[in-house]
């Protein structure tokens, strides 16, 4: 589940998931649905992977959104499916997935996920409040 929340002139999102690992998948879905609408059925795409590290889960969430925005901005595409390996000791997040071309230009211009007003409630359910610079 995700929805927009009030963040002044910027974009705020509340993302909710049953647990920490599911939260990262929900973040991916939220960003896609916000920018392009409903997620398409799985497509072939090209293999892609990344390892993200953070000082804590909040930083990891910011890094994950910024990774997704980087893929879009540089024309690499959208992550269409993904598998996650979350290690809470770092914490770190390893993601494998498949990239496809973005279905259209995103009409909402998001520049970066930020630490402003960042809040992660470990739950359950896990709730992330995050602000994006537009």
């Amino acid at each position, binding site marked *: 589940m995700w929805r927009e929340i009030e963040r002044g002139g910027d974009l705020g999102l509340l993302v909710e998931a049953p647990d920490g690992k599911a939260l990262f998948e929900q973040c991916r879905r939220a960003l896609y649905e916000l920018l392009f609408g409903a997620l398409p059925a799985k497509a072939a795409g090209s293999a892609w992977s990344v390892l993200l590290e953070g000082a804590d889960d909040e930083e990891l969430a910011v890094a994950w959104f910024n990774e997704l925005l980087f893929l879009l*901005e540089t024309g690499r595409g959208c992550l269409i499916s993904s598998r996650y390996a979350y290690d809470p000791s770092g914490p770190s997040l390893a993601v494998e997935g498949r990239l496809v071309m973005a279905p259209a230009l995103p009409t909402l211009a998001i520049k970066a996920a930020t630490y*402003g007003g960042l809040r992660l409630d470990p739950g359950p359910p896990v709730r992330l409040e995050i602000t994006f610079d537009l």
Partner: protein
Amino acid sequence: MALPLERIDGLRWLLPRRYRAAMLVPGMIYGDEALVGALEGDLALEQIANVASLPGIVGYSLAMPDVHQGYGFPIGAVAAFDEDEGIISPGGVGYDISCGVRLMVSSVTVEEVTGRLEALAQSLFSAVPSGVGSRGALSLSAKDLQKVLAHGARWAVEKGFGDGHDLTRIEEGGFLDGADGSALSQRALDRGRDQLGTLGSGNHFIEVQAVEALFDTPRAWAWGLREGAVVVLIHCGSRGLGHQVCDDALKAMNRIKGPSAVPVPDRQLCCAPLRSEEGRRYLAAMRAAANFALANRQVIGWKVREVFRSLGLSDLRLLYDVSHNTAHVETHVAEGKRRRLCVHRKGATRALPPGHAALPAELRPLGQPVLVPGSMGTASYVLAGTERGAEETFASTCHGAGRRLSRQAAKAATAGRTWPAAWHDRGSSSSPNGPRL
């Protein structure tokens, strides 16, 4: 709720040190009653107090009339830190490093473009890629990108995007010394490689304007501004490259341990001593990103000139180009003595007074042209730097339109309306990337 401010005079409001124990200096807000009253419910006051608590701050934590909450520092913030004992903060510069404005003046009259606005708008839209992730104007090799990061607008002029006179009308002569492209991450370089000469998204724009009124005719004439003449105002910055430099620095500074660590109440406010390795590295990277922004506006300005030429309109001359998201190490008189200070201006414009050595000879007698864009469809202003401003605000002023509505409130207020319809009613032509807020 009454704001915790003491009124000094009609346009100055003090946030006293007693507001919070950690404050090292007071806050000072510039604005009339309406502007300051609008701060109620905004986090800007807390952010002004946070900035006032950072080590090495000198004078006041200053807020310009367009202040509103930002990330870490508020937008519209000016804060100067001692070069030896102070800090540098990426949150005090902002994500869009060296975002700024350039004004190009012309002798083209409004009558000459009337009836051709649509063609002009479409030509500009074609010549300058815009929108999120826009790219393709120029694709730089790794070597050329490093030259851009080192030489800024000078690189652009050497490549034929403009002439030597342009460089005299850009702050710092078109590039910041002390930039280090090797301080940028590969990701920052990847983001910048294809983005030079692109406008980007958000509130960035190219606006064709008409000079409506002159308030100081001799100065305006000296600057090439004539009533009824067409001018072009460009607003953009360092694109994804600058964002990545900021993001990388936030990560690095939030992880500092040991003597260089500065405890802060907000991660976006993270900082490092200016003399620390992390501080020096950010300063060098920030200058490189600023050079990218200066080159970007130079290339865009050249493309706009080409569009005007292609339509048979006379040439555009650069009046001035100035950034409003920067940190410059400058000399100011503070607390009775000349000091080297790292002046953070986030959503604030440098405004050098008449006679300042950093101004080119032809602008020095009249002071720096200060460019203040308005919101879409409202007036922009060209001001001049003053001695009083130099003394009170480290030679700084506002940077343009502030924020009166939250995004969600604006969505509600504009539901069912589209921008183009409203614009056409006013006789304007525009090509926004989309009506969505």
